[in-house]
Each structure stands twice: as C-alpha cells, then as structure tokens.
C-alpha cells in the first residue's frame, strides 16, 4: 500500500469523492485532528431521551411480577434468540401479549436506537475527519455497552455521542470517567443496582426485614470490567480485593429517575445520579493506594489513578496498535504508544499524533481485515452515498453481523481477522455489494478505484474491473476487491 492509500484506508474510512486530496499523508491525518467536529448538527440537535431510560427501568420494576414483560425484555436482548424465526416475527412474537405501555416503550426504544445508529453511520459518511471517526468507534468499542439490556436502547447513542466523542482527542481519564459512569454502562454492567452492604440504605432495609424476593447488595460486575477491560487489562496485576474495593467505591453511582432512593439522587455530569444513602462508607484501598471516605469523589479519584497506571498504558497501547497496525501489533509500536501515554498522562491527542508519526503504522501491508462496519462505511463512501435511512443501515449491518452497540460481551466486538473473515461473511459482502452498486452512480469506476487505492490497485483487480460487463458490475467487484476488504 502507498502512504496515501494507508492514510485513506488503514487510518480512515476509505476514499470519498467529497474529501480533500490527501497530499502529504501525515499532514492529511494531522489536519483531521483540527477539523474534527465533536458535535455535528445531527448529534448537537438530538433530543434527550434520558427520561425514557428511567421510565423504562421503573416500568420494568413495576412489572417484575408480570412476567410477560420480562419475556420481551429478555428476548429483545438475546443476541441470537430467534434463529427459528425471522427477525420481524420474533419481534412481533416478543411484543405480542405485552402490557401496552411496555410495548409502546419498546417500539419507541427501537426507533430511537435505529436513529442513533443512522446518526453514527451518516456522520462517518460525511465527516471531514474520518480517521477521528474511526477513533470514536474504536473507543466506543473499548467501552462497549450492549442494547440487549432494557433501557440501554435510549442510552447507547448518547454514551458514544457524549461520553466518548468529546474526549476522543482529550484526556483518557476524562473519557474513562464519562464512559464508565454513564447511565448506559451503569445499566449494562449492573452497577445501578449495587448497594453498599453497610450503606444507610442497606442497614435500614435489613432492620425492616429486607425484601425477601430480591436480596440486593454489592455487585462487582462493573468494577471487574473496569479493571480487566477498560484500564489495566486482564494481566494488569489487580486482585480480587481490588475488584471488591472498587465495587464498594462505585456504590451509589446509579441511573437517575429510578427506585425509592431516586429522590435522594444528586445529578452528576456524566448523566448518572449519585445516591449517598447507597454508598458504602469508609476508606478504600485499591492497588495499594488509600482513598479516604468521600462519596461520589471516591470512585472518581480511583478512576483517575487507574487511567494513568502503567498497566493501563500498556493495555491501551496494545489495543490501539492492534487496531491500526495489525492483529499481532508490532512491539516497537506498542512501546512507542505506551511511552507517549505514560509521559503525557494519557493525552489522547498526543497519542493519536504518536500513532500517525510512528513508522510501524505505515508498513506497506495491508495489515488488517476490515470489520463489517468498517467495510460498509467505506463501501458507502466510495459509492458517494452521503446519507441512508435508518432501516436500511440497520438492515445491512444486521446481515453483516455487526450492529453497533450490540457486541456479544463487555469486551466489545473482536478486532481480529479470524472473527470476521469467514466464508459466510464474504458471501454476504458480495450480495450486499451487488445491491449497493445497483443504487449508486456507476460511472468512472476505474478512476474511482485508482483514487481510492492510489498506487496500490493490484493488476488482478484492475483486470477484472476492466472486464466487467457493466459499470454496475465493475462497482460491485470493486466493493469486494481484496484492496477494499483489507487495509
């Protein structure tokens, strides 16, 4: 791959005729950091759906005995629940027989979610900074949430738009606090239900005999994933005690508008609520460091320290290097990024510059197999598509197997070719390519191919493009060419 092709494809979302010319490849990428818009119109004008989250969780709580609602909620979430049915039928079946007020909320939740997915894709199609859009999606996957749990449908878009996007060239510690303490994550990893065993609320409950049906206490889910996935990494040197201590520190962080304790909630900048009554009292010890008793600030202080920990630097450097420079990232690049992260205390703009400037990121390659999402965005950009309706976007991503904010685990979607370069996946890309090509301008395909992969287009591909029986067929072939599938 030529440097220009690497800048377009490895770092960005591929060529779009509306882009400025690449020119000097590094300067082209560095410029994107300046022109990136953290809140383009579609995001800035998005109406708040925060109230709906609390409403949905409250309704579910009320309906807990009415098990039909739980059916729908679980079925809606199960990633592959309906192999025996079509998606529409599964949805209809899941909706069938639900309490009307919950049915209405589910329909609304799906609409909001589809709209948010469309905002994400359409923003990437027209962004003047496709490399930074890639970074947004990289970090969003790093702090993965899944709409499989009820309530998150309203929060997954805002999680990316407000907790990830504004910090993508900011400080990692700010992104960490925003992403981890966002309602989407608090719901996804069960934090919103976690209660300090010695917190005033738990003590009062115990005195009253408690709620026999639902014993509640400390939930370690979020604390564990913060250490394992978001910061230190699985081999980052933390112990079960650290997990439990962080879980204790996180108690009180919850979602606004829910529960009997809701009226005691203090609103937080992340959109979350903090309820002191639920917070485990006392000082905490995490990774050998002491944190004095201190309500909401306690977790923030721990997260700040985790954000700049050497193990975090190594973990983040490895993932970022893997994303841009190959499934087995070059150790020299990992070391370079790690050092930058450490010396700047996690300045992500500096880290991005270090990545752009690192020679290891410019190996001629290709070094990565495009994920379905990357491929679809690149294909649409190449065909000149600037906007696509939500249902078509969601439909295509569903068929490709990578709907945003629906990863199968808190680890997010895999960033390895082995997970995506499957036979069935190839067939689907070819099928979709033929369909996309049918609806796109079909002229000048060879010129477009040369612009998309400057100095990089292989003879084999060029030959097949020239031999195609029509512009449409040539375009379809270009969309599934080896050059297009990899970066």
């Amino acid at each position: 791959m030529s440097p220009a092709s690497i800048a377009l494809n490895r770092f960005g979302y591929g060529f779009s005729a509306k882009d400025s010319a690449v020119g000097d490849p590094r300067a082209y990428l560095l410029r994107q950091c300046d022109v990136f818009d953290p809140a383009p119109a579609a995001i800035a004008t998005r109406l708040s759906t925060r109230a709906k989250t609390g409403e949905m969780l409250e309704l579910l709580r009320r309906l807990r005995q009415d098990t039909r609602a739980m059916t729908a909620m679980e079925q809606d979430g199960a990633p592959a629940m309906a192999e025996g049915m079509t998606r529409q039928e599964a949805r209809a079946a899941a909706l069938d027989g639900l309490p009307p007020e919950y049915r209405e909320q589910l329909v609304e939740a799906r609409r909001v979610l589809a709209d948010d997915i469309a905002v994400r894709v359409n923003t990437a199609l027209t962004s003047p900074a496709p490399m930074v859009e890639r970074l947004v999606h990289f970090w969003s996957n790093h702090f993965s949430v899944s709409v499989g749990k009820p309530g998150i449908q309203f929060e997954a878009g805002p999680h990316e738009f407000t907790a990830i996007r504004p910090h993508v060239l900011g400080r990692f510690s700010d992104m960490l606090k925003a992403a981890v303490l966002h309602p989407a994550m608090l719901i996804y990893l069960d934090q919103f239900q976690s209660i300090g065993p010695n917190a005033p609320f738990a003590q009062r409950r115990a005195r009253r005999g408690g709620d026999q049906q639902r014993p509640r206490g400390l939930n370690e889910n979020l604390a564990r994933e913060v250490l394992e996935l978001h910061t230190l990494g699985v081999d980052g040197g933390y112990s079960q005690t650290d997990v439990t201590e962080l879980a204790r520190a996180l108690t009180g962080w919850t979602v606004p508008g829910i529960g009997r304790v809701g009226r005691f909630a203090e609103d937080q900048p992340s959109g979350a609520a903090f309820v002191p009554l639920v917070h485990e009292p006392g000082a905490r010890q995490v990774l050998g460091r002491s944190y004095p008793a201190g309500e909401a600030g306690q977790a923030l202080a721990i997260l700040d320290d985790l954000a700049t920990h050497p193990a975090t630097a190594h973990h983040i450097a490895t993932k970022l290097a893997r994303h841009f420079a190959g499934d087995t990232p070059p150790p020299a690049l990992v070391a370079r990024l790690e050092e930058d992260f450490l010396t700047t205390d996690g300045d992500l703009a500096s880290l991005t510059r270090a990545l752009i400037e690192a020679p290891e990121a410019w190996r001629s390659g290709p070094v990565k197999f495009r994920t379905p999402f990357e491929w679809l965005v690149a294909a649409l950009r190449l065909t000149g598509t600037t906007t696509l309706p939500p249902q078509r976007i969601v439909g295509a991503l569903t068929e490709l197997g990578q709907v945003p904010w629906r990863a199968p685990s808190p680890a997010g979607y895999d960033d390895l070719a082995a997970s995506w370069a499957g036979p069935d996946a190839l067939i689907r890309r070819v099928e979709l390519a033929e369909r996309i090509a049918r609806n796109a301008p079909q002229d000048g395909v060879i010129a477009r191919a040369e612009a998309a992969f400057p100095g990089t287009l292989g003879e084999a591909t060029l030959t097949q493009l020239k031999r195609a029986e029509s512009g449409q067929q040539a375009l379809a072939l270009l969309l599934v060419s080896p050059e297009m599938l990899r970066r």
Partner: protein
Amino acid sequence: MTTSLDRRSLLAGSLLGAGTLALPRLAFAQGTGRRNLLFVLLRGAADGMAMLAPVGDPGFAALRGATLADYENAPRLGSFFAVHPALAEIATSAAAGEALFVHAAATAYRERSHFDGQNLLESGGTAPYATKDGWLNRLAGLMNAGAPAPLRALAIAPAVPLALRGDAPVSNYAPSALPQASEDLLARVSLLYGADGELGPLWARALETRAMAADDGLKNLRDASAAGELAASLMRGDSGARIGMIELGGWDTHANQRGAFARSARQLDALLAAYRTGMGAAWTDTLVVVATEFGRTARLNGTGGTDHGTASAALVMGGAVRGGRVIADWPGLADGQLYEGRDLAPTIALESVIAGAVAEHLRLDPKLAMARLFPGRSDAPLSGIIRA
C-alpha cells in the same frame, strides 16, 4: 466402575439391560473418523419439566396441574417420565433406543440471567465472561491436535456463536435475507480472488457451502424442518462439517406456557427429525446434544408460565447413543426439595453430561475432555452414554 451411575440413574424404559452398563474401554485419541457432533443450543431457558414431565412424582400435579392434560396420552419413558407430546419424533427415537434425556441437570451457573447463563454454557468457564472462547471450539482444537488437517466446524447461524469461537478454524452459514448475488458476479469474484492466498480458499469454501446448501431455497432459518435438513446437508459426506452447531429460540415461556412451549418444542422436534433423516446412514456415527442455559420455576406462575429457574433437562440423541432411558438423580418436587424453594434442584452437572457424551462419542479421554472443555470443574464426566 458403574456404581455411581447406577446409584444416580433411573433406568426408565431402557431397552437395554442393566448388564450393558459396562463401559466401553476408551483409548485416547484414536481419531474421530467420520463421527459427527451437532450441538443444539436452546436459547431462553427451556423448561425441562415441560419437555420431560415427571408425572410419577406426586408433586408434579400440584405444581403443574394446568398442564397435566398434555401428558395423558404422551409417550412414556418408564412409569415416571412423560415426553411432551410435541416431541413425538424425539420420543420415537427414544423408544428406538437412540435418544436419552438427562434430567435435573444444570451448569455451574446459579443466577438467573439469560445473558450470563448462556455465556457460561457456551464458554465453558466457571464464571460468566471469564473465558473468552467456547467449549465447542476447544473441542475442535482437541481433535485437530495431531490431525493432518483441521476438521470442519460449522455454525448454522448468521454469526459464529460463542461456543464455537476460538483459535480452531470454524465457519458459519445461514440463509441470507439478502438477495442472492448473480452467478456471473460470483464467477467473477472467483477470478478476482484467484491469486489471493487468504480470500481464495475462503471464497472456495463459501461457494462450496453455498453449493451444498444451494437447493435449500431458504431465506432464513425460520422453517425448523428445513433448517434441520440444511444442517444435515452441510454435515454429510467426506467434505461435510464434523462439528455443527445450531440455535433455537422461543423458550422463555413466562406466560401462557402451554401454547408457547408446544410451539417451540414442535420446532425442535421437526429440526431433529429432519436432521436425523437427512444424515441417512451417517446417523449411526452422529451425536446430537441439546442443552439450554438453565431451567424454569417448578411452579406455574400467575400468568400460566414459568420464570427463570435452575435445573432443566438435556437431550442426547444419535445412532450410537445408548438411549431409551432417563439419567437422573431425581431431586423431588416437594417444597423442601426445590432449589431456593422455587426451582427444580440441580443434581447433575450439565458440563459432565456434555463432556462425557462428547468424549465417548469422539473417542477422547473423558477426563481430558472435561478439563479442556470445562476447566475448573470438580465433577466427573458422565459415562455410559454411548454404546460400546
């Protein structure tokens, strides 16, 4: 060596005498030959007590009175258990000695989230999300060790499910809702990928799978019978997949369970019947394991359904299965016998069932299989599932 099994077993309606319980002596890694394994995951927590009703337990009528009529003329496995009438084909297989149920089985998971329960059943880990690959993939890895070429492992699903993810090469296939690409484009893509070392072979496998499935005429996996035929068509013959996995949903029967369960059960029954027929002569060398993440509450709830529970039933089926019976250490249904006062209590580790069945069928060392597929478990793999 079979005392523990004897003690634990209710040999209900066995067509084989207890004398045949003696275990086949299994050598390690004799090679798997043409043996096939299909794992069917019932997502949503299938109700084992509806699937295989313990009609002989006096507690059953008290807990499930409203469903008793379903089992009046249902096929029996011994005097104690009745097979749900919608599972007629499976019952036929059981009567022919080719299917057995394991009852009151559960994984190590004791909470009640589908998410985590499925994750644990598929990953084979001891805690949800603790293990990142799946036991079925580790099984493929185990069988690939020392083999001249990796075996084919295939999910009949739009994406590779967690159980099949991992280091061993796997593939997946599902009928697509996308319009099929034109033959001309497919041929040209072959030329396009001809010289590409990675895409060329992948594409060839894709076309091959597509050709094998070409006459299915399916757009999705909605028709369970067609899905079963499809699975068989992809697992037959020398080039077929040796390991297959398929998922079925619709088991989360919180309300109006009688109708909902029967619908899902008919799907499972049709799928397995079509698969059995489709495998033809290879059925003799085929093992099907059907499992779900956890069971449901023993008592019907106020909406005629059941809520998330603990133990459920598993089904093991195939030409080599020593079937016609139920393996259970029946925990009982009296109030004091229910798990946490509400669920069928688990008495057999589902992991032991899977590891034991799979190891005997594929001629793997059962202990090794248990350790690799479900590390960190203390349970011994169940033995005597496959005929000597």
